[in-house]
């Protein structure tokens, strides 16, 4: 999946000249990025390059020191309280370690955001929504299991299902395949693609797994030393490899 077909679609995420530092460590240095409706965008970068910081800014968990982050035509920095919650309900965030609630079983994990945000739903409607989300990730038989009893891949799937239950317009995936074996990784990649198709989401995928980026994304942005080195389709980014880009390629596809 490496076409450039979505470029003409409306802008969903627009990041303008964003800077972010933690103490004296400058993590992002003037980032610009546009993500269009319906496309899957991968952000590739080494550990500590600021990928997760960038994705957390998109949902308002972190604020930029300078610059603007627009999501669905709203500047995230300016939103507070109910306005920010309303935006967050339109965005799904899949965490690197899944962040499932330890004290709740799978059903409760999925039902929790629904119950808290839609107080008027009946028990039957909640059960139906949970079932639907579990079917979407292929884990319909795991309702009563606790997160501790699930494998890494299953936890990732349940994490994705928990975001899908709120029917998001945008999906943000933080390292969706990290720590998984190649077979499970490819299953997660297939799930990301199917979520894009079935739920018609726009996705941003943070990863250093080139296979994941190649299989799931329309475009790739390579983040090196706090700035985007290249943005384009997989071929555009990796056909002309520089010293900074080739390590990614060589690591993932041994030449």
């Amino acid at each position, binding site marked *: 999946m490496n076409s450039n077909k979505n470029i003409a679609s409306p802008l969903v995420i627009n990041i303008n000249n964003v800077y972010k530092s933690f103490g004296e460590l400058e993590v992002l240095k003037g980032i610009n990025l546009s993500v269009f409706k319906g496309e899957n965008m991968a952000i590739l970068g080494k550990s500590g390059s600021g990928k997760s910081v960038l994705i957390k800014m998109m*949902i308002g*968990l972190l604020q930029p020191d300078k610059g603007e982050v627009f999501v669905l035509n709203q500047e995230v920095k300016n939103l507070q309280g109910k306005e920010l*919650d*309303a935006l*967050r*309900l339109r*965005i799904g*965030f899949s*965490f*690197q*370690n899944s*962040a*499932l*609630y*330890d*004290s709740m079983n799978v059903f409760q994990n999925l039902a*929790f*955001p629904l119950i*808290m*945000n839609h*107080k008027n739903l009946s028990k039957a409607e909640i059960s139906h929504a949970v079932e639907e989300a579990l079917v979407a990730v292929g884990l319909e038989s795991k309702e009563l299991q606790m997160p501790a009893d699930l494998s890494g891949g299953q936890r990732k799937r349940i994490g994705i299902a*928990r*975001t899908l239950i*709120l029917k998001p317009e945008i999906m943000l995936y933080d390292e969706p395949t990290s720590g998984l074996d190649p077979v499970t990784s490819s299953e997660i990649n297939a799930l990301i693609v199917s979520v894009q198709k079935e739920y018609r989401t726009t996705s941003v995928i943070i990863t250093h797994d080139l296979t994941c980026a190649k299989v799931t994304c329309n475009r790739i942005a390579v983040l090196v030393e706090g700035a985007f080195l290249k943005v384009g389709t997989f071929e555009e980014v990796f056909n002309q490899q520089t010293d900074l880009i080739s390590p990614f390629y060589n690591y993932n596809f041994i030449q």
Partner: protein
Amino acid sequence: MLVKQNKPYVINKKIDSYFDGVYHAFKFVKRFFAQVIRPPFHFKEVINQSYEIGIKSLSLITLTGFIVGMVFTKQTRPSLEDFGATSWLPSLIGIAIVRALAALVTALICAGKVGSSIGAELGSMKVTEQIDAMEVSAINPFKYLVVTRVLATSLTIPILALYCSFVGLLGSYLNVYGSEASSLTMFYKNAFSDISFLDIFASVVKSIFYGFTIGMVGCYKGYYATQGTRGVGKAANEAVVLSMFLIFVEEIIIVQVSNWIRLY
């Protein structure tokens, strides 16, 4: 290369970080009061947490309260016998347990058992991004996790303290019964003969303060836990140490205030 920093710089930095910590804690408490009065109210979660706190601490409070009452009576009796004043024993024990010991013993047990559990639970949720997961799902984690737990400790610990008084007096009665034939009804009647409404009221009020402190400190330490699993252990440990320290400070203040009220 490691740069050795001079002493005044390090001390200044520690003082800065101390006052920074106090300021953050103050903001945390202020945030609690701002959110506790605003809907949505998670009554069900408050009840769940109260039940958890009560169940977790009940056996330990029963045992400790019983032993405190029994041992305190056993140690006091010889001194009173010297003056031929053993008939004062029930009222002396009653005053000691209801005014001071029950609330303090309950608070210290709960600081260890409940405070550490809250610190560890929230700390673990913080480092595994479960708190962030709530936030991105448009759920207010402060309201759902902190407000409910602080309310639960503030409501449950006074009840546990009253229960501890009852069990402590029961322990005391059993010791008294071993030495002289006395009925339980008479013992309780004598024990409460010198206890005023103010004594019970002050005991309940200070238990509310202790409960608030235990919940608030546990939540604060857990909510801002860092450094992975090490941070979780640190949060649990600091929650116990700090809440015990604050409980003793509050005890001194509340005793002074209630004595002052009693005098006037």
